[in-house]
Every structure is written in C-alpha cells, then in structure tokens.
C-alpha cells in the first residue's frame, strides 16, 4: 500500500488526467483551459470576500457584546448602590458569560483571519501560474507541431492543474468554515434579538426591570417626602410622624 504522500499526489494526478481526457484540439483546449483558470481565480477572490464579510459580522457581534459588558458592569454598580447585592451578583454573572462569548468570538475571528491569509497566498500563487500558462500557451500555439504541442500542453496543464486542485481545496475549506461560523453567528443574533439567550438576555431584562423598579421606587419615595413636607408647611402642625428619608 502506497504512503500518504504518493496517494495524495495520485489523487491530484487523477483529477488532472480527467481534465486532459477531454482535450481534443490542442489550441482550443489551451484557450478553454485558460478561461477555466480565470474562473478559478474569480472563485478565490469571492472566497476571500466571503471570509472578510463573515469576519465583519463577528466583529460587529463582538462590539455588541462589549457594550453589554459595560452596561452590565454599570448595572451591577447601580444595584449595589441601591443595596441590592443579589441583583449586582446577577449582573456580574451575566457579565462573565458575555466575556466568555467574547473570547469565543475572538478565536473565531482569528480562525477566519488565517483562512483569509491562506486564500490570499493561494490567489497569488495561482495567478502567477495562470500568467505563466498564458505566455506558454502562445509559445506552444506558435511553435510546435500538433503532436509536440499535445505533450507540452499536457505538461503545462498538469502543473497548473495541481495548483488549481490545491486552491480548490483551500476555497472549499474556507467556505465550510465560513458557513459554520455564519450559522453560529446567526443563531446568536436571533437569540439576542428574541431575548431568549438563556440566563443572559432574559436575565438582563429582569435586571433592567428590577433596577427600574428600584429607581421608580425611590422616585415615589422622594415625591412622597416632598408632598409630606408641603403638607406640613401648609397645614397646622399635626402629629403626623415625619416621613423617613431613605
């Protein structure tokens, strides 16, 4: 049984010979093949654009989460000032969760950056080979007899076919990873918007509500105190016990 290295190159050669089997008229094959190479270059460019888009989306989510972290922190302070340690604790717990999410997002962004770098490098290599192929094909067309041209075409096409196979795999892998991440990012978006991200958004809502209740509670207290003071000043002194201040 052959080793991995020879098997991997055999697989690629099999792909290339499949491609060359379709060749009939060398000159036509050359031009057609060149067109396909240009299409492949377009695919790499699109692959790079897709990775960049996915990365931007994750970066946007990162920003949102960072804002949430800041908000939760100030909510915790607010709650603590109001003597609600339980709420402050809840806010800090949620902050920790958001920070975990942020770490995961960071890793994903780094992963996409790697993909981007790889694809950019692939594009450079492929485009250099396509250019070399283009100039060789003119030479082959101009200088060689049909039989000899066939051999030369085979060589050039194999060389570029190998690069295309490698690039093709890189594009496919980048696409797989991008799709996975987009699915995950979409799920997080949906959850955030629906407010059902467990013990995160839903709790945050509860937290908001309770903090609101505290501040509206103290507003009511203040108003009561003010009213009491007005009554006391206006009316004759009664034995009403002065309102406690909080």
């Amino acid at each position, binding site marked *: 049984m052959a*080793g991995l*290295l020879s098997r*991997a190159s055999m*697989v690629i050669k099999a792909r290339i010979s499949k491609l060359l089997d379709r060749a009939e008229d060398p000159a036509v094959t050359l031009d057609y093949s060149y067109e396909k190479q240009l299409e492949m270059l377009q695919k790499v460019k699109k692959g790079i654009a897709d990775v960049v888009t996915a990365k931007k989306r994750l970066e946007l989510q990162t920003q949102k989460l960072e804002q949430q972290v800041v908000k939760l922190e100030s909510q915790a302070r607010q709650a603590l000032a109001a003597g609600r340690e339980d709420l402050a604790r809840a806010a800090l717990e949620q902050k920790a969760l958001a920070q975990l999410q942020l770490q995961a997002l960071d890793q994903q962004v780094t992963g996409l950056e790697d993909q981007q770098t790889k694809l950019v490098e692939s594009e*450079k290599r492929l485009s250099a080979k396509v250019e070399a192929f283009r100039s060789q094909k003119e030479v082959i067309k101009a200088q060689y007899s049909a039989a000899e041209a066939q051999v030369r075409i085979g060589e050039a096409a194999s060389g570029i076919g*190998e690069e*295309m196979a490698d690039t093709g*795999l890189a594009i496919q892998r980048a696409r797989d990873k991008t799709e996975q991440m987009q699915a995950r990012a979409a799920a997080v978006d949906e959850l955030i918007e629906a407010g059902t991200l467990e013990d995160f958004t839903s709790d945050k809502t509860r937290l908001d509500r309770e903090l609101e209740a505290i501040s509206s509670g103290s507003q009511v207290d203040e108003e009561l105190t003010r009213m009491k003071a007005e009554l006391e000043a206006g009316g004759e002194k009664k034995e009403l016990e002065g309102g406690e201040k909080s």
Partner: protein
Amino acid sequence: MIVRVMGEGQYEVADALGVRLNELDEQALAALERGDEAGLDAALEQMAALVRQEGTPLAADDLRVSDVVIPPTDLTLEETRKLVSEHGLIPDLPA
C-alpha cells in the same frame, strides 16, 4: 524532487531527503490507520517542516508537477482519509 506542501506551495528538495520523508510517511499512514489524529498531524507537520527547512521554494510561476504532495495538517482524520481516497476531498477541476 519537487514536493508540494498543500496550502503552502511547492519546494525543490534533494532526492536524498526522500528517505527521511518516507519514514515519516510510514508513521503518518500508521497513525491514520490506527485513528491517531495527533500522531498523524505530528508526522505531517514534521514532513512539512523538513521540506521548508531543507528545500528551496519553487517560483510561483513554475509549471512543473510535484513528485509528492504533503496533505495539510488542519484536516480531521476523516478528511485526510477522504483526501487520499479515490473520490476524495479535492474537488473536481473545472472543465
């Protein structure tokens, strides 16, 4: 001899390096067969490192075909299996 490190490009290495590469290749294959992903990655990475270190990068516009191809290390076991199989991971070329 010309070696392609998949995802990285081609290198020209002395034929003598083939012996060392073969040994590592056997280790990689054995790791693949016993389902040892870490072992497989380690062997592949060593091969790639050896080629990077001992070889000379081939110009990007060189149209020569590689004698051997080193699979990438960031594949799962299953993906590597597919890569080296008949209707593998490598997509059909556009034609």
